[in-house]
């Protein structure tokens, strides 16, 4: 019996010993709540994909990398596009290249690959690569699955389940994940194009990534980000003021598109470093009441309606 992997959400600065060579080298600053930790560990135990939904910029995508880093596992990321097919993740077969090489050889020129060996022309996709790692599990992130065609999740389902295997049609080769080390799969979605199919959902574990609304957690997030990136932490007053203002903008503003954690971090960075010196914390707290406007709203507000709420109409910029 292999030792069961367990994700703790520890604050690691360096790769754990014995990490796989394809594991992420850089630490991923991530604060994990208890519930999310349970969800991740359940996904590992039950060998089911974990479906993450939530507002944009709240850390759906970073989680997979953080897990891979802490456990020292190889990390694969598959960004889904509207033209992605489930098979692209498995393998791509270069039939034309093979035909080309046959012609080269007939003309008695050397080809890079051997056309008599069909396997030379098969290039593994992300899933294929993840399956081929036999000595440990890998972490596979399928990012923004809702962007793909309607049938995509269903096509994927058959591969991401027992027996974790697919066939390369052209070579007859069968690619199979080692039964002890099946990949840990994270899937993110933001329901851009409606719901995912029921059969797919049934198989997935589900977690909704909430925006970290409390001051303490935001502070932790700031701390960890700045430590890992080796940046100078903003003064405590500025941090507190920024956190308080940000939360108030987010909760009271009635915004159409609420800014997420990543926007907050950008804003804090702007407050700290833009214009050469840190923004005054008093001025930030006093904004609005004293007629001052919040600075660098460009970082936080991305929709015109939201923008109007915070800018007076006669402001000509």
């Amino acid at each position, binding site marked *: 019996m292999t030792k*069961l992997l367990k994700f703790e959400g520890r604050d690691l600065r360096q790769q754990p010993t014995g990490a796989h060579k394809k594991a992420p080298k850089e630490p991923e600053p991530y604060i994990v709540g208890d*519930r999310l930790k*349970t*969800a991740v*560990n*359940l996904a590992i*135990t*039950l060998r*089911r994909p974990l*479906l993450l*939904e939530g507002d944009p910029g709240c850390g759906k995508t970073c989680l997979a990398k953080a897990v891979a880093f802490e456990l020292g596992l190889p990390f694969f990321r598959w960004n889904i596009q509207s033209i992605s097919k489930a098979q692209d993740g498995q393998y791509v077969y270069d*039939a*034309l290249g093979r*035909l080309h090489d*046959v*012609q080269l050889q*007939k003309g008695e020129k050397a080809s890079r690959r051997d056309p008599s060996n069909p396997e030379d022309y098969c290039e593994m996709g992300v899933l294929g690569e993840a399956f081929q790692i036999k000595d440990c599990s890998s972490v596979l992130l399928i990012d923004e699955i809702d962007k793909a065609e*309607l049938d995509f999740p269903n096509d994927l389902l058959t591969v991401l389940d027992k027996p974790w295997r697919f066939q390369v049609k052209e070579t007859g080769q069968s690619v199979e994940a080692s039964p002890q080390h099946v990949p840990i799969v994270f899937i993110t979605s933001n329901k851009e*194009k*409606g*719901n995912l*199919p*029921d059969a797919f*959902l*049934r*198989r*997935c*574990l*589900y*977690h*909704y990534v909430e925006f970290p609304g409390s001051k303490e957690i935001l502070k932790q997030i700031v701390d960890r980000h700045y430590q890992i990136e080796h940046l100078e932490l903003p003064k405590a007053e500025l941090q507190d003021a920024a956190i308080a203002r940000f939360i108030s903008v987010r909760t009271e503003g009635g915004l159409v598109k609420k800014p997420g954690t990543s926007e907050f971090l950008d804003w804090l960075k702007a407050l700290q470093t833009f214009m050469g010196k840190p923004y005054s914390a008093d001025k930030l707290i006093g904004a609005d009441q004293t007629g001052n406007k919040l600075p660098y709203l460009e970082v936080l507000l991305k929709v015109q309606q939201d923008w109007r709420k915070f800018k007076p109409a006669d402001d000509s910029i």
Partner: protein
Amino acid sequence: MTQFDAQDWITQLFLRLRQRGYPLGVDEYQAALQASEAGYAQDEAALLELAQILWCHSRSQQSQLVPIWQDLQREAQKQKPLQENLADKEEPSPLSEKPVDEVKPQQLDPEPLIREREALPKQEVSSLPVQAPLMLIERESILPLQNYFPLSRRSMVYGWRFLRRMVADGCKNVLDIPATIQVVTEQGYYLAPVYRRQQRNEARLLLLIDQNGSMMPFHRFARDLVETARGESPLQEDNVQIFYFHNVPASHVYQDLYLTSPVALKDVLGYCDRDTSVLIVSDAGATRGYRRQERIQNTTRFLRQLQKQTHLIAWLNPMPRPGWVGSSAEILSYLVPMFQMDRFGFSEAIDVMRGVAKPSGQEDED
């Protein structure tokens, strides 16, 4: 409670959720048992969390689970003192003596519970004389519209995908790899790649949508239908024509949903040919239970005109089928294939529109 019996709770909660229509299978049940063995269901809070992660697939499902779970807890609380009382009075049966550990997860499948229920002594019921139900006032069926969500956008997109008539008449620029290789092997040398023509979807759709009045509650579905047909279907944009009408398509239909820019019906019909699919979206008077001779006659006249052009006509009625009874919808459903607006109804309507299913109106004539 000395030991928290997670397996029993899991079984009960699973059955309860199945009743509530959660899409769960035996696999999901076993996964929960596996998780509880791995120590993810130490106490009630942990079990609730496990169920939320494993068995729910949206935030609303997760919040719906909480009251279901609380109900279950309350019932268990009520039963406990009863069982204790019984245990005091009676000899414990051999079954209850069995320690919990001996019960393996495989034995705990939902079947025994069902069997237990079946084994209950059947009550003797004597037959009562058959009697027509007494109805003093006319029955009014009230459809709770705020929860009425028969056809999702996803199902619409999915349905439209089948409405296609592929014709290869585009540019000849699609590389046919199998054919190229075939030619090379036949000739023994490679000359040129084989190209195929691009395929185009030639299916044409005429969407006629009843607007305002009794259709008011269903506007969102009509809007979704229009949006998906225009933007998220394989249909070419020029091949989708959408017109609106109120109650009955009269001499004019309208290009906009506010019914302000009229188009003569004969022009619209002129657009139709034998291969044009027509989808009519209207409640046909079923929402208010109307049965007006005039409306039926006018609609029939319109349908006859339309049927001269094409037979690929389907009618999507946003009211559920039982609501048609007695209204003009019931009569019209004999003239044209009418389907209720849910996933199956829509896919059947698509089948009629693509000429796969036989329009029911024709059967009588054959």
